[in-house]
Protein backbone atom coordinates (compact mmCIF):
# COMPACT_ATOMS: atom_id res chain seq x y z
CA UNK A 1 0.00 0.00 0.00
CA UNK A 2 1.44 3.31 -1.00
CA UNK A 3 0.80 6.99 -0.55
CA UNK A 4 2.33 10.37 -1.22
CA UNK A 5 3.15 13.11 1.22
CA UNK A 6 0.94 16.18 0.92
CA UNK A 7 2.10 18.19 3.91
CA UNK A 8 4.76 18.05 6.62
CA UNK A 9 4.51 20.02 9.83
CA UNK A 10 6.52 19.23 12.91
CA UNK A 11 6.37 15.53 13.50
CA UNK A 12 3.12 15.16 11.59
CA UNK A 13 2.74 14.25 7.98
CA UNK A 14 -0.42 14.30 5.90
CA UNK A 15 -0.40 11.79 3.08
CA UNK A 16 -2.82 10.90 0.33
CA UNK A 17 -3.53 7.33 -0.60
CA UNK A 18 -5.99 5.37 -2.64
CA UNK A 19 -5.54 2.18 -0.65
CA UNK A 20 -7.66 1.25 2.32
CA UNK A 21 -5.40 1.87 5.27
CA UNK A 22 -6.21 1.14 8.90
CA UNK A 23 -5.80 3.44 11.85
CA UNK A 24 -2.86 2.59 14.13
CA UNK A 25 -1.11 0.65 11.39
CA UNK A 26 2.51 1.58 10.86
CA UNK A 27 4.26 2.80 7.75
CA UNK A 28 7.49 4.24 6.50
CA UNK A 29 8.06 7.66 4.96
CA UNK A 30 10.80 7.31 2.39
CA UNK A 31 13.15 10.25 2.35
CA UNK A 32 14.70 11.30 -0.94
CA UNK A 33 18.04 9.84 0.18
CA UNK A 34 16.35 6.48 0.61
CA UNK A 35 16.15 6.46 4.41
CA UNK A 36 12.88 5.10 5.76
CA UNK A 37 11.31 6.81 8.75
CA UNK A 38 8.88 4.85 10.88
CA UNK A 39 5.45 6.37 11.37
CA UNK A 40 2.02 5.45 12.67
CA UNK A 41 -1.39 6.27 11.22
CA UNK A 42 -3.32 8.25 13.79
CA UNK A 43 -6.25 9.49 11.73
CA UNK A 44 -7.85 8.57 8.43
CA UNK A 45 -10.23 10.94 6.67
CA UNK A 46 -11.31 9.79 3.23
CA UNK A 47 -8.14 9.52 1.20
CA UNK A 48 -6.21 11.71 3.62
CA UNK A 49 -4.09 10.04 6.25
CA UNK A 50 -2.51 11.77 9.26
CA UNK A 51 0.73 10.18 10.34
CA UNK A 52 2.91 10.76 13.33
CA UNK A 53 6.57 10.25 12.61
CA UNK A 54 8.77 8.79 15.33
CA UNK A 55 11.82 10.53 13.92
CA UNK A 56 13.00 13.95 12.94
CA UNK A 57 11.01 14.92 9.87
CA UNK A 58 13.76 17.10 8.49
CA UNK A 59 14.43 16.21 4.87
CA UNK A 60 10.93 14.95 4.07
CA UNK A 61 9.34 16.66 1.08
CA UNK A 62 5.91 16.92 -0.45
CA UNK A 63 5.59 14.18 -3.00
CA UNK A 64 7.81 11.69 -1.15
CA UNK A 65 6.50 8.14 -0.95
CA UNK A 66 4.91 6.54 2.07
CA UNK A 67 4.76 2.75 2.38
CA UNK A 68 1.95 1.46 4.58
CA UNK A 69 2.08 -1.82 6.44
CA UNK A 70 -0.69 -3.93 7.87
CA UNK A 71 0.80 -4.41 11.35
CA UNK A 72 0.37 -2.23 14.34
CA UNK A 73 3.29 -0.83 16.27
CA UNK A 74 4.67 -3.94 18.01
CA UNK A 75 7.37 -5.13 20.30
CA UNK A 76 9.42 -8.28 20.06
CA UNK A 77 9.12 -10.54 23.09
CA UNK A 78 11.45 -13.37 23.96
CA UNK A 79 14.48 -14.32 26.00
CA UNK A 80 17.22 -11.71 26.04
CA UNK A 81 15.15 -8.70 27.04
CA UNK A 82 16.54 -8.49 30.55
CA UNK A 83 19.50 -6.22 31.00
CA UNK A 84 18.79 -4.35 27.82
CA UNK A 85 18.65 -0.62 27.32
CA UNK A 86 16.15 0.26 24.62
CA UNK A 87 14.85 3.36 23.03
CA UNK A 88 11.12 3.68 22.58
CA UNK A 89 11.11 1.69 19.36
CA UNK A 90 12.90 -1.16 21.06
CA UNK A 91 16.22 -0.49 19.38
CA UNK A 92 18.96 -1.69 21.69
CA UNK A 93 20.90 1.52 22.31
CA UNK A 94 24.37 0.14 23.03
CA UNK A 95 24.31 -1.94 19.83
CA UNK A 96 22.97 1.00 17.87
CA UNK A 97 25.77 3.19 19.16
CA UNK A 98 28.28 0.55 18.15
CA UNK A 99 26.93 0.36 14.63
CA UNK A 100 26.35 3.99 13.80
CA UNK A 101 28.26 5.97 16.39
CA UNK A 102 27.15 7.98 19.40
CA UNK A 103 25.14 10.53 17.49
CA UNK A 104 22.30 8.69 15.92
CA UNK A 105 20.88 9.40 12.52
CA UNK A 106 17.19 8.87 11.93
CA UNK A 107 16.08 5.74 10.18
CA UNK A 108 18.27 3.18 11.90
CA UNK A 109 16.42 0.20 13.25
CA UNK A 110 17.92 -2.98 14.66
CA UNK A 111 16.28 -6.17 15.81
CA UNK A 112 15.50 -5.89 19.50
CA UNK A 113 16.89 -9.28 20.45
CA UNK A 114 20.11 -11.00 19.62
CA UNK A 115 19.09 -13.47 16.93
CA UNK A 116 22.27 -15.50 17.08
CA UNK A 117 22.79 -15.97 20.80
CA UNK A 118 21.97 -19.60 21.68
CA UNK A 119 19.63 -20.42 24.57
CA UNK A 120 19.47 -23.70 26.50
CA UNK A 121 16.07 -25.03 25.59
CA UNK A 122 14.24 -27.55 27.76
CA UNK A 123 10.91 -28.78 26.39
CA UNK A 124 8.06 -29.12 28.87
CA UNK A 125 5.35 -30.62 26.67
CA UNK A 126 5.29 -33.70 24.51
CA UNK A 127 3.97 -34.26 21.04
CA UNK A 128 0.23 -34.83 21.20
CA UNK A 129 -0.45 -32.43 24.04
CA UNK A 130 -3.32 -29.98 23.61
CA UNK A 131 -2.39 -26.37 24.33
CA UNK A 132 -3.88 -22.90 24.22
CA UNK A 133 -2.45 -19.43 23.89
CA UNK A 134 0.04 -18.56 26.68
CA UNK A 135 0.55 -22.20 27.68
CA UNK A 136 4.16 -23.07 28.34
CA UNK A 137 5.92 -25.20 25.75
CA UNK A 138 9.33 -25.18 27.36
CA UNK A 139 11.77 -22.89 29.01
CA UNK A 140 15.21 -21.35 28.80
CA UNK A 141 17.23 -19.93 31.68
CA UNK A 142 17.51 -16.16 31.53
CA UNK A 143 19.48 -14.36 34.24
CA UNK A 144 18.17 -15.79 37.51
CA UNK A 145 14.78 -16.79 36.10
CA UNK A 146 13.26 -19.56 34.09
CA UNK A 147 11.99 -17.86 30.98
CA UNK A 148 8.98 -19.78 29.76
CA UNK A 149 8.43 -20.02 26.04
CA UNK A 150 4.69 -19.80 25.47
CA UNK A 151 2.21 -20.41 22.71
CA UNK A 152 1.81 -17.00 20.99
CA UNK A 153 -0.74 -14.96 22.91
CA UNK A 154 -2.83 -14.00 19.92
CA UNK A 155 -3.62 -17.55 18.83
CA UNK A 156 -7.21 -18.50 19.39
CA UNK A 157 -8.65 -21.90 20.14
CA UNK A 158 -6.90 -25.14 20.91
CA UNK A 159 -3.82 -26.52 19.25
CA UNK A 160 -2.24 -29.94 19.23
CA UNK A 161 1.52 -30.19 19.58
CA UNK A 162 2.84 -32.02 16.58
CA UNK A 163 6.54 -31.88 17.33
CA UNK A 164 8.82 -30.24 19.87
CA UNK A 165 12.54 -29.62 19.56
CA UNK A 166 14.75 -31.74 21.81
CA UNK A 167 16.73 -30.18 24.66
CA UNK A 168 19.66 -28.24 23.34
CA UNK A 169 20.95 -24.84 22.35
CA UNK A 170 18.98 -22.88 19.80
CA UNK A 171 18.86 -19.23 18.73
CA UNK A 172 15.53 -17.45 19.19
CA UNK A 173 14.62 -17.52 15.51
CA UNK A 174 14.83 -21.32 15.29
CA UNK A 175 11.55 -23.18 15.15
CA UNK A 176 11.14 -25.01 18.44
CA UNK A 177 7.69 -26.51 18.04
CA UNK A 178 5.04 -27.17 15.44
CA UNK A 179 1.40 -26.91 16.42
CA UNK A 180 -1.67 -27.97 14.48
CA UNK A 181 -4.94 -26.09 14.82
CA UNK A 182 -8.39 -27.66 14.80
CA UNK A 183 -8.67 -27.51 11.02
CA UNK A 184 -5.31 -29.23 10.56
CA UNK A 185 -3.13 -26.29 9.54
CA UNK A 186 0.42 -26.29 10.82
CA UNK A 187 1.92 -23.35 12.70
CA UNK A 188 5.56 -22.91 13.66
CA UNK A 189 6.56 -21.52 17.05
CA UNK A 190 9.88 -19.84 17.73
CA UNK A 191 11.17 -18.40 20.99
CA UNK A 192 10.24 -14.86 19.99
CA UNK A 193 6.86 -13.38 19.29
CA UNK A 194 5.51 -9.94 18.55
CA UNK A 195 2.68 -8.09 20.23
CA UNK A 196 1.08 -4.74 19.38
CA UNK A 197 1.98 -2.31 22.14
CA UNK A 198 -1.37 -0.63 22.45
CA UNK A 199 -3.27 -3.83 23.11
CA UNK A 200 -3.23 -4.99 26.71
CA UNK A 201 -1.56 -8.37 27.02
CA UNK A 202 -3.30 -10.46 29.62
CA UNK A 203 -4.13 -14.13 29.23
CA UNK A 204 -5.34 -15.19 32.64
CA UNK A 205 -7.89 -17.21 34.46
CA UNK A 206 -9.00 -14.22 36.44
CA UNK A 207 -7.91 -10.88 37.71
CA UNK A 208 -7.26 -10.66 41.41
CA UNK A 209 -7.83 -7.81 43.76
CA UNK A 210 -4.33 -6.66 44.60
CA UNK A 211 -3.72 -7.22 48.30
CA UNK A 212 -0.19 -8.45 48.89
CA UNK A 213 1.97 -5.56 50.07
CA UNK A 214 4.85 -4.63 47.84
CA UNK A 215 7.70 -3.98 50.21
CA UNK A 216 10.03 -1.23 49.07
CA UNK A 217 12.18 -1.02 52.23
CA UNK A 218 11.44 2.68 52.36
CA UNK A 219 9.87 3.20 55.78
CA UNK A 220 7.54 6.05 54.94
CA UNK A 221 6.10 4.10 52.01
CA UNK A 222 5.80 0.67 53.59
CA UNK A 223 4.46 1.81 56.94
CA UNK A 224 2.48 4.91 56.18
CA UNK A 225 1.52 4.85 52.50
CA UNK A 226 1.80 1.25 51.37
CA UNK A 227 1.67 -0.03 47.83
CA UNK A 228 0.61 -3.53 46.77
CA UNK A 229 1.66 -5.98 44.10
CA UNK A 230 -0.53 -5.30 41.11
CA UNK A 231 -1.49 -1.88 42.38
CA UNK A 232 -0.77 1.54 41.03
CA UNK A 233 0.77 4.58 42.64
CA UNK A 234 1.84 7.96 41.58
CA UNK A 235 4.65 10.23 42.72
CA UNK A 236 4.00 13.79 41.80
CA UNK A 237 6.65 16.26 42.72
CA UNK A 238 8.11 19.49 41.52
CA UNK A 239 11.39 19.55 39.74
CA UNK A 240 14.28 18.62 42.00
CA UNK A 241 12.27 17.13 44.84
CA UNK A 242 13.93 13.76 44.49
CA UNK A 243 11.60 11.73 42.28
CA UNK A 244 14.35 10.06 40.35
CA UNK A 245 16.35 9.22 43.46
CA UNK A 246 13.28 7.69 45.04
CA UNK A 247 12.71 5.58 41.95
CA UNK A 248 16.27 4.35 42.01
CA UNK A 249 16.00 3.32 45.65
CA UNK A 250 12.73 1.59 44.92
CA UNK A 251 14.08 -0.30 41.95
CA UNK A 252 17.01 -1.45 44.00
CA UNK A 253 15.29 -2.60 47.16
CA UNK A 254 11.70 -3.36 46.20
CA UNK A 255 10.70 -6.99 46.61
CA UNK A 256 9.83 -7.73 42.99
CA UNK A 257 11.35 -9.98 40.37
CA UNK A 258 11.79 -7.57 37.52
CA UNK A 259 12.02 -3.82 37.29
CA UNK A 260 11.31 -1.97 34.08
CA UNK A 261 12.32 1.65 34.08
CA UNK A 262 11.05 3.99 31.47
CA UNK A 263 12.66 7.37 31.39
CA UNK A 264 10.52 9.47 29.16
CA UNK A 265 11.25 13.03 28.21
CA UNK A 266 13.94 13.49 30.78
CA UNK A 267 17.01 15.53 30.04
CA UNK A 268 19.61 13.61 28.06
CA UNK A 269 22.18 14.04 30.81
CA UNK A 270 19.99 12.29 33.37
CA UNK A 271 19.26 9.43 31.04
CA UNK A 272 22.95 8.96 30.37
CA UNK A 273 23.56 8.97 34.12
CA UNK A 274 20.99 6.25 34.62
CA UNK A 275 22.47 4.13 31.89
CA UNK A 276 25.97 4.50 33.29
CA UNK A 277 25.04 4.00 36.92
CA UNK A 278 22.71 1.06 36.72
CA UNK A 279 25.06 -1.63 35.53
CA UNK A 280 27.33 -0.75 38.46
CA UNK A 281 24.66 -1.04 41.12
CA UNK A 282 24.51 -4.30 42.97
CA UNK A 283 21.30 -6.08 43.67
CA UNK A 284 21.11 -6.42 47.44
CA UNK A 285 19.17 -9.64 47.08
CA UNK A 286 21.17 -11.59 44.53
CA UNK A 287 24.53 -9.87 44.86
CA UNK A 288 24.75 -9.62 41.10
CA UNK A 289 24.47 -6.57 38.93
CA UNK A 290 21.07 -4.95 39.16
CA UNK A 291 20.88 -4.89 35.37
CA UNK A 292 20.30 -8.64 35.29
CA UNK A 293 16.71 -8.11 36.31
CA UNK A 294 16.17 -4.68 34.84
CA UNK A 295 15.10 -3.34 31.48
CA UNK A 296 15.60 0.33 30.76
CA UNK A 297 13.66 2.13 28.08
CA UNK A 298 14.54 5.71 27.53
CA UNK A 299 14.04 8.68 25.35
CA UNK A 300 15.16 12.15 26.16
CA UNK A 301 13.47 15.50 26.08
CA UNK A 302 15.35 16.23 22.87
CA UNK A 303 13.51 13.53 21.01
CA UNK A 304 10.36 14.20 19.00
CA UNK A 305 7.19 13.96 21.01
CA UNK A 306 5.22 11.59 18.82
CA UNK A 307 7.58 9.12 20.03
CA UNK A 308 6.65 9.59 23.63
CA UNK A 309 3.01 8.81 23.11
CA UNK A 310 3.62 5.49 21.47
CA UNK A 311 6.50 4.91 23.79
CA UNK A 312 4.38 4.75 26.85
CA UNK A 313 3.07 1.48 25.67
CA UNK A 314 6.25 -0.46 24.99
CA UNK A 315 7.61 -0.61 28.41
CA UNK A 316 7.03 2.86 28.17
CA UNK A 317 8.73 5.50 26.16
CA UNK A 318 8.97 4.59 22.62
CA UNK A 319 10.68 7.35 20.87
CA UNK A 320 13.21 8.48 18.47
CA UNK A 321 16.67 9.67 18.87
CA UNK A 322 17.85 12.44 16.67
CA UNK A 323 21.03 12.83 18.64
CA UNK A 324 21.25 11.06 21.90
CA UNK A 325 24.70 10.36 23.22
CA UNK A 326 24.47 6.92 24.71
Amino acid at each position, binding site marked *: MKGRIKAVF*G*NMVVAQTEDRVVKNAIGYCVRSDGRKLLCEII*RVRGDCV*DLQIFEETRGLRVGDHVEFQEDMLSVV*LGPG*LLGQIYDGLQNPLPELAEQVGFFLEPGNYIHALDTECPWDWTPKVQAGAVVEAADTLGSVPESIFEH*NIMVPFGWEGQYTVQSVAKSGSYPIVKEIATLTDSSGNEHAVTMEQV*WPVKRPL*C*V*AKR*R*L*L*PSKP*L*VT*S*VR*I*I*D*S*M*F*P*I*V*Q*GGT*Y*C*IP*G*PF*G*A*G*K*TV*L*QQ*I*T*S*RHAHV*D*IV*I*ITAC*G*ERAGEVVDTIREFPELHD*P*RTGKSLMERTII*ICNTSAMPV*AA*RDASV*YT*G*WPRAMLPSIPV
Partner: protein
Amino acid sequence: MTLAEYYRQIGLNVLLLADSTSRWAQAMREISGRLEEIPGEEAFPAYLESRIANFYERAGAIELRDKRIASVTIGGTVSPAGGNFDEPVTQATLKVVGAFHGLSRSRSDARRYPAIDPLDSWSKYVGIIDPKKVQKVHNMLRRGDEVRQMMTVVGEEGTPIEDFTMMLKEEFFDSAYLQQNAFDDVDAATSIDRQRFVFDKILEILEADFAFKDKDEARHTLKKISSMFINWNYAPWDESVIPESDREDEPMDKSVRRDDGETERGDFKEILGQIDQTIQSLLKNAGKSEVEGELEQVTA
Protein backbone atom coordinates in the same frame (compact mmCIF):
# COMPACT_ATOMS: atom_id res chain seq x y z
CA MET B 1 4.03 -1.80 29.43
CA THR B 2 3.95 -4.68 26.99
CA LEU B 3 7.32 -5.89 28.22
CA ALA B 4 6.02 -5.80 31.78
CA GLU B 5 2.90 -7.72 30.80
CA TYR B 6 5.01 -10.29 28.99
CA TYR B 7 7.04 -11.05 32.11
CA ARG B 8 3.85 -11.20 34.13
CA GLN B 9 2.62 -13.83 31.69
CA ILE B 10 5.78 -15.82 32.47
CA GLY B 11 4.76 -15.76 36.11
CA LEU B 12 6.91 -13.03 37.64
CA ASN B 13 6.17 -9.93 39.68
CA VAL B 14 7.10 -6.85 37.73
CA LEU B 15 7.47 -3.25 38.82
CA LEU B 16 7.16 -0.66 36.08
CA LEU B 17 8.54 2.74 36.95
CA ALA B 18 7.28 5.32 34.52
CA ASP B 19 9.21 8.56 34.60
CA SER B 20 7.46 10.83 33.81
CA THR B 21 3.84 10.70 32.76
CA SER B 22 3.73 14.49 32.42
CA ARG B 23 6.01 14.41 29.40
CA TRP B 24 3.80 11.80 27.86
CA ALA B 25 0.81 14.04 28.42
CA GLN B 26 2.68 16.94 26.89
CA ALA B 27 3.37 14.81 23.85
CA MET B 28 -0.33 14.01 23.59
CA ARG B 29 -1.11 17.69 23.82
CA GLU B 30 1.31 18.55 21.08
CA ILE B 31 -0.01 15.91 18.71
CA SER B 32 -3.59 16.70 19.51
CA GLY B 33 -2.89 20.34 18.79
CA ARG B 34 -1.40 19.50 15.44
CA LEU B 35 -4.47 17.41 14.64
CA GLU B 36 -6.55 20.51 15.38
CA GLU B 37 -8.66 18.71 17.93
CA ILE B 38 -10.70 20.75 20.36
CA PRO B 39 -8.53 21.33 23.42
CA GLY B 40 -9.62 20.62 26.96
CA GLU B 41 -8.24 21.97 30.19
CA GLU B 42 -4.80 23.58 29.83
CA ALA B 43 -4.92 22.62 26.16
CA PHE B 44 -4.60 18.91 26.96
CA PRO B 45 -6.82 16.81 24.72
CA ALA B 46 -10.25 15.92 26.01
CA TYR B 47 -9.29 12.25 26.11
CA LEU B 48 -6.35 12.82 28.45
CA GLU B 49 -8.11 11.28 31.41
CA SER B 50 -9.27 8.18 29.62
CA ARG B 51 -5.79 7.60 28.18
CA ILE B 52 -4.21 7.89 31.61
CA ALA B 53 -6.84 5.63 33.11
CA ASN B 54 -6.28 3.05 30.36
CA PHE B 55 -2.59 3.06 31.06
CA TYR B 56 -2.89 2.45 34.79
CA GLU B 57 -5.65 -0.07 34.14
CA ARG B 58 -3.07 -2.36 32.60
CA ALA B 59 -1.47 -2.93 35.99
CA GLY B 60 -2.84 -5.74 38.09
CA ALA B 61 -2.40 -9.05 39.78
CA ILE B 62 -3.62 -12.04 37.80
CA GLU B 63 -4.02 -15.73 38.29
CA LEU B 64 -2.47 -17.48 35.34
CA ARG B 65 -4.04 -20.50 33.72
CA ASP B 66 -1.73 -22.78 35.67
CA LYS B 67 -2.80 -21.13 38.96
CA ARG B 68 0.37 -19.18 39.54
CA ILE B 69 -0.05 -15.58 40.58
CA ALA B 70 1.83 -12.78 38.88
CA SER B 71 1.56 -9.04 38.87
CA VAL B 72 2.45 -5.79 37.22
CA THR B 73 2.70 -2.76 39.49
CA ILE B 74 2.93 0.68 37.98
CA GLY B 75 4.61 3.57 39.69
CA GLY B 76 4.31 6.71 37.64
CA THR B 77 5.89 10.03 38.39
CA VAL B 78 4.24 13.27 37.46
CA SER B 79 6.15 16.52 37.24
CA PRO B 80 3.54 19.21 37.64
CA ALA B 81 4.75 22.63 36.59
CA GLY B 82 5.65 24.68 39.64
CA GLY B 83 4.64 21.91 42.02
CA ASN B 84 0.98 22.70 41.51
CA PHE B 85 -0.96 19.47 42.10
CA ASP B 86 -4.16 20.98 40.72
CA GLU B 87 -3.11 20.66 37.10
CA PRO B 88 -4.96 18.19 34.83
CA VAL B 89 -2.34 15.44 34.60
CA THR B 90 -1.95 15.10 38.36
CA GLN B 91 -5.69 15.26 38.90
CA ALA B 92 -6.43 12.67 36.21
CA THR B 93 -3.80 10.37 37.69
CA LEU B 94 -5.10 10.75 41.23
CA LYS B 95 -8.49 9.47 40.17
CA VAL B 96 -7.13 6.13 39.05
CA VAL B 97 -4.18 5.25 41.28
CA GLY B 98 -4.34 3.48 44.61
CA ALA B 99 -1.62 5.38 46.41
CA PHE B 100 -0.24 8.85 46.22
CA HIS B 101 3.23 9.82 47.39
CA GLY B 102 3.28 13.58 47.09
CA LEU B 103 6.79 14.92 47.15
CA SER B 104 7.17 18.34 48.61
CA ARG B 105 9.69 20.97 47.75
CA SER B 106 9.85 22.33 51.26
CA ARG B 107 10.75 18.92 52.66
CA SER B 108 13.49 18.36 50.13
CA ASP B 109 14.82 21.86 50.72
CA ALA B 110 14.92 21.09 54.40
CA ARG B 111 16.96 17.99 53.52
CA ARG B 112 14.30 15.67 54.77
CA TYR B 113 14.52 12.59 52.61
CA PRO B 114 12.60 10.89 51.20
CA ALA B 115 10.68 14.09 50.57
CA ILE B 116 7.27 12.42 50.67
CA ASP B 117 4.85 14.75 52.39
CA PRO B 118 3.25 12.81 55.25
CA LEU B 119 0.22 15.07 55.35
CA ASP B 120 -0.61 15.22 51.64
CA SER B 121 0.02 11.61 50.75
CA TRP B 122 -2.44 8.78 51.04
CA SER B 123 -2.85 5.13 50.16
CA LYS B 124 -5.92 2.97 49.74
CA TYR B 125 -3.95 -0.20 50.31
CA VAL B 126 -3.27 -2.08 53.50
CA GLY B 127 0.42 -2.47 54.13
CA ILE B 128 2.56 -4.36 56.58
CA ILE B 129 1.45 -2.41 59.62
CA ASP B 130 -1.92 -2.60 61.28
CA PRO B 131 -4.09 0.13 59.70
CA LYS B 132 -5.40 1.14 63.14
CA LYS B 133 -1.92 1.97 64.32
CA VAL B 134 -1.18 3.85 61.12
CA GLN B 135 -4.36 5.85 61.59
CA LYS B 136 -3.30 6.81 65.11
CA VAL B 137 0.00 8.11 63.82
CA HIS B 138 -1.71 9.99 61.01
CA ASN B 139 -3.93 11.78 63.49
CA MET B 140 -0.95 12.63 65.62
CA LEU B 141 0.94 14.04 62.66
CA ARG B 142 -2.00 16.18 61.70
CA ARG B 143 -2.46 17.42 65.24
CA GLY B 144 1.24 18.24 65.55
CA ASP B 145 1.12 20.22 62.35
CA GLU B 146 -1.90 22.18 63.56
CA VAL B 147 -0.06 23.10 66.72
CA ARG B 148 2.94 24.24 64.74
CA GLN B 149 0.80 26.49 62.60
CA MET B 150 -0.90 27.90 65.65
CA MET B 151 2.45 28.48 67.26
CA THR B 152 3.59 30.68 64.40
CA VAL B 153 0.73 32.98 65.41
CA VAL B 154 0.67 32.82 69.20
CA GLY B 155 4.34 32.07 69.76
CA GLU B 156 5.88 29.42 71.95
CA GLU B 157 4.86 31.26 75.11
CA GLY B 158 1.19 31.03 74.30
CA THR B 159 1.23 27.32 73.53
CA PRO B 160 0.11 24.97 76.28
CA ILE B 161 2.72 22.37 77.20
CA GLU B 162 0.50 19.45 76.13
CA ASP B 163 0.28 20.88 72.63
CA PHE B 164 3.94 21.69 72.62
CA THR B 165 4.80 18.11 73.52
CA MET B 166 2.50 16.90 70.79
CA MET B 167 4.39 18.94 68.25
CA LEU B 168 7.73 17.68 69.50
CA LYS B 169 6.50 14.13 69.23
CA GLU B 170 5.48 14.73 65.66
CA GLU B 171 8.92 16.11 64.91
CA PHE B 172 10.47 13.12 66.61
CA PHE B 173 8.48 10.68 64.49
CA ASP B 174 9.44 12.56 61.37
CA SER B 175 13.16 12.58 62.03
CA ALA B 176 13.42 9.15 63.60
CA TYR B 177 11.16 7.16 61.33
CA LEU B 178 9.97 8.93 58.21
CA GLN B 179 13.37 10.20 57.21
CA GLN B 180 15.77 7.67 55.88
CA ASN B 181 19.34 7.99 54.72
CA ALA B 182 19.58 6.57 51.22
CA PHE B 183 23.36 6.62 51.26
CA ASP B 184 23.79 4.50 54.35
CA ASP B 185 24.05 0.77 53.76
CA VAL B 186 21.90 -0.17 56.73
CA ASP B 187 19.46 2.71 56.84
CA ALA B 188 18.72 2.72 53.10
CA ALA B 189 16.59 -0.42 53.31
CA THR B 190 14.49 -1.46 56.25
CA SER B 191 13.06 -4.95 56.28
CA ILE B 192 9.46 -5.80 57.09
CA ASP B 193 10.13 -7.19 60.55
CA ARG B 194 12.34 -4.31 61.48
CA GLN B 195 9.76 -1.77 60.36
CA ARG B 196 7.10 -3.45 62.46
CA PHE B 197 9.33 -3.66 65.48
CA VAL B 198 10.58 -0.07 65.34
CA PHE B 199 7.11 1.25 64.53
CA ASP B 200 5.68 -0.36 67.64
CA LYS B 201 8.47 1.03 69.78
CA ILE B 202 7.88 4.49 68.40
CA LEU B 203 4.16 4.24 68.95
CA GLU B 204 4.92 3.41 72.56
CA ILE B 205 6.68 6.74 72.90
CA LEU B 206 4.08 8.67 70.94
CA GLU B 207 1.33 7.37 73.18
CA ALA B 208 3.21 7.66 76.43
CA ASP B 209 2.08 10.42 78.71
CA PHE B 210 5.25 12.23 79.68
CA ALA B 211 4.46 15.05 82.05
CA PHE B 212 7.31 17.44 81.48
CA LYS B 213 8.02 20.21 83.95
CA ASP B 214 8.68 22.81 81.29
CA LYS B 215 9.17 23.16 77.57
CA ASP B 216 12.94 23.04 77.77
CA GLU B 217 12.83 19.69 79.46
CA ALA B 218 10.39 18.40 76.88
CA ARG B 219 12.57 19.61 74.06
CA HIS B 220 15.73 18.14 75.49
CA THR B 221 14.23 14.79 76.30
CA LEU B 222 12.65 14.26 72.91
CA LYS B 223 15.77 15.38 71.17
CA LYS B 224 17.69 12.81 73.17
CA ILE B 225 15.24 10.04 72.32
CA SER B 226 15.22 11.09 68.72
CA SER B 227 18.99 10.88 68.36
CA MET B 228 18.91 7.48 70.04
CA PHE B 229 16.46 6.25 67.42
CA ILE B 230 18.51 7.65 64.59
CA ASN B 231 21.55 5.78 65.86
CA TRP B 232 19.32 2.78 66.19
CA ASN B 233 18.39 3.07 62.52
CA TYR B 234 22.05 2.84 61.61
CA ALA B 235 22.59 -0.27 63.72
CA PRO B 236 22.42 -3.55 61.82
CA TRP B 237 19.17 -5.42 62.38
CA ASP B 238 19.20 -8.19 64.92
CA GLU B 239 16.43 -10.60 64.04
CA SER B 240 16.59 -12.34 67.41
CA VAL B 241 14.48 -9.61 69.05
CA ILE B 242 11.30 -11.14 67.66
CA PRO B 243 10.23 -14.76 67.88
CA GLU B 244 10.95 -16.85 64.83
CA SER B 245 7.29 -17.62 64.22
CA ASP B 246 6.53 -13.93 63.70
CA ARG B 247 9.26 -13.30 61.17
CA GLU B 248 8.32 -12.56 57.63
CA ASP B 249 11.57 -11.43 56.06
CA GLU B 250 13.11 -13.51 53.38
CA PRO B 251 16.37 -14.87 54.71
CA MET B 252 19.13 -12.62 53.44
CA ASP B 253 21.75 -13.98 51.15
CA LYS B 254 24.67 -14.28 53.52
CA SER B 255 27.28 -13.67 50.84
CA VAL B 256 25.89 -10.20 50.23
CA ARG B 257 26.12 -9.18 53.81
CA ARG B 258 29.23 -7.12 54.33
CA ASP B 259 31.45 -7.77 57.29
CA ASP B 260 31.18 -4.57 59.10
CA GLY B 261 34.53 -3.79 60.48
CA GLU B 262 33.11 -0.42 61.41
CA THR B 263 32.95 0.15 65.10
CA GLU B 264 30.89 3.32 65.18
CA ARG B 265 27.71 1.43 64.45
CA GLY B 266 25.96 0.57 67.67
CA ASP B 267 24.57 -2.81 68.54
CA PHE B 268 20.86 -3.12 67.79
CA LYS B 269 19.96 -4.74 71.09
CA GLU B 270 22.16 -2.46 73.14
CA ILE B 271 20.46 0.66 71.83
CA LEU B 272 17.09 -0.99 72.30
CA GLY B 273 18.03 -1.48 75.95
CA GLN B 274 18.96 2.17 76.32
CA ILE B 275 15.73 3.31 74.73
CA ASP B 276 13.62 1.10 76.97
CA GLN B 277 15.46 2.37 80.01
CA THR B 278 14.89 6.00 79.04
CA ILE B 279 11.19 5.43 78.48
CA GLN B 280 10.84 3.65 81.80
CA SER B 281 12.59 6.36 83.77
CA LEU B 282 10.56 9.06 82.04
CA LEU B 283 7.30 7.30 82.80
CA LYS B 284 8.36 6.80 86.40
CA ASN B 285 9.17 10.49 86.76
CA ALA B 286 5.88 11.40 85.17
CA GLY B 287 4.03 9.12 87.58
CA LYS B 288 5.89 10.53 90.54
CA SER B 289 5.25 14.13 89.67
CA GLU B 290 1.56 13.39 89.29
CA VAL B 291 1.45 11.76 92.69
CA GLU B 292 3.36 14.66 94.16
CA GLY B 293 0.95 17.04 92.51
CA GLU B 294 -1.99 15.24 94.05
CA LEU B 295 -0.32 15.22 97.42
CA GLU B 296 0.24 18.93 97.19
CA GLN B 297 -3.38 19.44 96.34
CA VAL B 298 -4.44 17.34 99.26
CA THR B 299 -2.23 19.20 101.70
CA ALA B 300 -3.43 22.49 100.33
